[in-house]
């Protein structure tokens, strides 16, 4: 151990430390880039241009998983009698409710999509539900689904935004999704999206693999350093022994010397 700390090994130790640190920094940087790019992609869908709802899903389709947060154009008639509130929704750190009114897409007897109009602190302060025609853009969201029971089905407050609960209040076929109105409706503050789209599995995979690669290189630097030190120490011991042997030989040679002179 003391031997390994000899000054002549210091440059090697220093190089190993510098290289290992460099690989760790580069690896962390790549992993960071991987995370950033995934987050960016996840957010970006919510900022993309709105598309027609029918291009994303039909009334009877299951929710398309890759379209969480997709802005959709909604054009139709409000079903104000189906207005509901969803409890336990935060806005700016304050607990409150979402105000929700279904919109018959395209008007008439068409299936409806529940639209979150915005956030209210208390249903008592909520404005009158919207009526008539509407043309708005909303982020598409899959319905909540942890199966929390509505403990009071007689009021207009739901603990969760479940299509099965909403459908009790409107005599209408409903989409298997809801929309969060961009900018809020009727002056209500916009509800915060609870479900952001997930980035694709392969998004920025290259950065992740590069990051891991750097860590493996780091481990390799440590291995190289270990091997190098082992060899240096072994070589040092060998040369010490050789020196000792040489000393012995010289001594015997000195002792022999006088005899040779005599001869």
């Amino acid at each position, binding site marked *: 151990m003391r031997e390994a700390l000899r000054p002549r090994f210091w440059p090697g130790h220093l190089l190993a430390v510098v290289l290992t640190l460099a690989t760790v920094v580069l690896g962390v940087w790549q992993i960071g880039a991987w995370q950033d790019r995934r987050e960016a992609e996840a957010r970006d869908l919510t900022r993309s241009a709105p598309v027609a709802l029918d291009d994303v899903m039909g009334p009877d389709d299951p929710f398309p998983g890759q379209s969480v947060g997709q802005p959709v154009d909604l054009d139709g008639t409000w079903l104000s009698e189906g207005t509901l509130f969803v409890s336990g929704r935060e806005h700016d750190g304050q607990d409150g409710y979402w105000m929700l009114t279904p919109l018959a897409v395209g008007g008439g007897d068409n299936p409806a999509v529940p639209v979150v109009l915005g956030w209210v602190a208390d249903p008592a302060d909520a404005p009158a539900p919207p009526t008539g025609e509407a043309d708005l853009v909303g982020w598409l969201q899959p319905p909540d689904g942890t199966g929390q029971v509505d403990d009071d089905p007689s009021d207009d407050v739901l603990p969760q935004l479940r299509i099965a609960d909403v459908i009790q209040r409107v005599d209408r076929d409903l989409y298997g999704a809801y929309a969060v109105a961009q900018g809020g409706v009727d002056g209500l503050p916009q509800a915060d999206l609870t479900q952001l789209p997930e980035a694709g599995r392969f998004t920025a995979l290259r950065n992740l693999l590069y990051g891991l*690669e750097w860590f493996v*290189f780091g481990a*390799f630097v440590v*291995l190289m350093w270990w*091997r190098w030190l082992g060899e240096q120490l072994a070589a040092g011991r060998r040369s010490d022994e050789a020196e000792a042997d040489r000393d012995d030989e010289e001594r015997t040679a000195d002792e022999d010397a006088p005899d040779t002179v005599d001869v």
Partner: protein
Amino acid sequence: MKGLFTAYRVLAIVVGVLLAVCSLVALPMKYLLTEGTAAQQFGEDLSVLWLVHGWIFMIYVVVAFFLSRKAGWSYGFTIVALVAGLVPLLIFWVERQVVHKLKAENPDLEPVA
């Protein structure tokens, strides 16, 4: 020793070819051609090989290091051999040097491939 030697030669050639394709074909196609053209897109798609190069280079580095220790190369030559996987075309020359060196020192190594 013989196994390491063969593995080294195969890896050196694979790394060399990948690096040459990446740096001499994919890179100019990706950055020098007009964006949006099919050839530019091809260059961009080809850039995935950088990743393949990276991982194979990693294996190359480990194999080359163990070979260098077994063969008792100087640290200078070992470092050249390791870094060669990052400089386009250098690795082909290094591979010839290694084959020469090892065959001269170990006549029992049969010619491979």
